């Protein structure tokens, strides 16, 4: 480590962690504002512009409103789990912000975890447990249906996401996020080098983090608020906050793993080392994350709806999983053929891109949703099943 300021573990913890968390929460407010003004443009309207100049304080007003509302806890809920669930959802999302490389770890400002990818996958899975807890603890059938859907989706989409991450890790030769960014600096962005992996990861992560069109965690028009039906006040605010933070988080992760993070290809010696270089890196990450976020918002506003739960899972198991396995096989062959990770030529794009297009066309011809009408012989008022 170069800079002596952050040599001390305690100094790092006490300085970096609060900055990171406060940064995440401030981002949340800014991006909430940006979201609402931005999505309004797709709907030919303006968005909030009354609270504060250009409506900047709108999110603060909403947050205050949520905090000041009465916290109604129904009498039949499991109180411990009901209170635990928002925490189980909020903290993992905040924890993942720790490993995102906002700048080069060699500058000493940002830490680097050498098993970053495993940490990422593991911690984001805890959110699923939180959702299940929230749904189970509220003694409400709607919450239960919502929770079952969420946990089923999260478990189903873990596989394609993890397999595409393994592909990324193979190409980079390392599991640490910083190392992946450095690999992209040498070889080119992974969005070009493995487009199929990018698409699978994008769609899978949209499902995992609950972005539309997979927004089971948000207020579903079908389920009337789904998992967070029985929450009010600040706990409800936490659910909404986590929904947005996950979107931000997903954009950061995509920007880091596929778009090159804080660097550009071939920019090794250009930016100065140390704290100044860290600022350049931060700006680069922000711009890329912003681009991904804009793209996510565009998709969210356009999609006219969600798929049904069995169609979601059919999509994950029958379409995304085989594609991600094939992607992994292709990447593994290339890694072996070029003798180890750091020596990728850029023209490997011309193998991967046609493979991506051909595989997608092939799968779209053969993939069926399944789940048609089920023959049930139901007896009214007796509720005995068939047979």
């Amino acid at each position, binding site marked *: 480590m170069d800079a002596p300021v952050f040599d001390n573990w305690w100094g790092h913890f006490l300085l970096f962690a609060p900055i990171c968390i406060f940064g995440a929460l401030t981002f949340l407010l800014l991006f909430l504002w940006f979201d609402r003004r931005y999505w309004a443009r797709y709907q030919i309207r303006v968005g909030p512009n009354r609270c504060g100049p250009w409506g900047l304080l709108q999110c603060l007003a909403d947050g205050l409103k949520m905090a000041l509302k009465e916290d109604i806890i129904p009498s039949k809920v499991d109180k411990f789990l009901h209170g635990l669930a928002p925490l189980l959802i909020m903290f993992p999302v905040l924890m993942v912000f720790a490993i995102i490389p906002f700048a080069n770890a060699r500058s000493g400002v940002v830490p680097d975890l050498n098993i970053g990818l495993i940490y990422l996958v593991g911690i984001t899975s805890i959110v699923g447990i939180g959702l299940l807890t929230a749904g189970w603890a509220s003694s409400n059938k709607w919450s239960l249906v919502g929770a079952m859907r969420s946990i089923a989706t999260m478990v189903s989409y873990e596989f394609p996401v993890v397999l595409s991450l393994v592909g990324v890790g193979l190409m980079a030769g390392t599991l640490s996020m910083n190392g992946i960014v450095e690999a992209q600096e040498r070889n080119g962005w992974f969005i070009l080098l493995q487009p199929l992996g990018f698409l699978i990861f994008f769609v899978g992560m949209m499902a995992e983090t609950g972005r539309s069109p997979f927004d089971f965690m948000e207020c579903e028009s079908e389920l009337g608020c789904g998992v967070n039906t029985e929450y009010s006040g600040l706990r409800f605010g936490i659910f909404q906050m986590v929904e947005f933070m996950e979107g931000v988080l997903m954009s950061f992760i995509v920007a880091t793993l596929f778009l090159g993070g804080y660097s550009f290809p071939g920019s090794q010696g250009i930016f100065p080392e140390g704290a100044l270089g860290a600022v350049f890196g931060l700006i680069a990450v922000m711009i890329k994350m912003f681009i991904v976020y804009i793209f996510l918002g565009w998709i969210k506003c356009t999609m006219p709806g969600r798929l*049904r739960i069995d169609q979601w899972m059919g999509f994950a198991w029958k379409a995304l999983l085989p594609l991600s396995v094939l992607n992994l096989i292709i990447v593994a062959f290339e890694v072996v053929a070029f003798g180890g990770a750091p020596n990728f030529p850029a023209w490997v794009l011309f193998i991967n891109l046609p493979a991506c297009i051909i595989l997608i066309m092939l799968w779209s011809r053969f993939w069926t949703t399944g789940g048609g009408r*089920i023959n*049930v012989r139901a007896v009214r008022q007796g509720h005995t099943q068939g047979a």
Partner: protein
Amino acid sequence: MVQSLDTREEIIQVATQPYVLNIGPHHPSTHGVFHLRTVLDGEVIVDAEILIGYLHRGIEKLAETRTYTQVIPLTDRFDYLASMTNNLAYCLAVEKLAGIEVPERAQYLRVILAELMRASSHVMSLGFLMNDLGSLFTPLFLAAREREKMLDLFEMLSGQRLLYNFMRIGGVSQDATDLFLFKARQFVDQMPMYLNEIDQLLTENEVFRVRAEGTGALSAEDAINFSCSGPVLRACGVDRDIRRDDPYLIYDRFDFDVITCQNGDNYDRYRVRLGEIWQSLRILDQALRDIPSGEVQAKHPHFLRPPVGEAFSRIEAPKGELGFYLVSDNSIAPYRFHVRSSTLINLTPLSKMLIGWKLADAILTLGSIDIVLGEIDR
């Protein structure tokens, strides 16, 4: 023929317990206070029961103590998204009962307004269907924008945006200005571009097609047996439209097609409605071109006393076949006033359409039948 992608027999073998889930009356997607009590096994609907009456206002009883003209604002409140069509059906029934002849210009104006109502009701139902599917309200805003233009036209004509009280016995209440006809013509010319936008956003969208194709299917035989009408019937393949088969007003002078599809699932109902908007624009084009000048309301006594008798009139309302049954006993108020409500009858095969499908399909099917609670509960 019910078409589904694959059917499985008796999938429920694990000892699960079905549970009762109440959809509504407070629900974001039930288009009003509509209560559907479903029995679910996992996600599969095993039984569905409709409970209505949350919006019952006793309009049929109220009409027995109001004069024939005073009943017209009451009829507004049935299908409040297309309220002039209710007025129209009622006025046709009274005119049949009392033998009143409607002048030409009033007939043309009635046709223009009925078709504008149809377009606004259908475009709104498309928007809300996408809401039920789960969009971030973008299609709803686009549809509402189109409807807003039509509401501006209605405001120009009658002064109100939602409950117009515009039709009268013997015609319409006020004349349309030249500006109205000019702006209506401008609207008909501009609408295809915006309708194309909505079409491109929604019709070929894979998510929508995967969700809507095959689900909530109703066979033609079932639809006829359950007396369905309107887009629900035409989507099953039955070619029936009262405007063509039993023409009222002057519909026999206009040239339009009746849109039918084959499968009777949610996607076909969407396609029928979208096609009907195009046909409405076609009729509007012809009517705006041919409208003559003249009187707009036939003269009749202020307190109308029709002779003793009964009359039934039916029209092709946007939601289906709307009928009014009137019995008169030569007094100033109707003796009996009954509505053959299109949406209530269209809801009768609902359990047949829902059993075997999943919870998400229930919401979508309910949205695609396009219910308005005012008409169901009266």
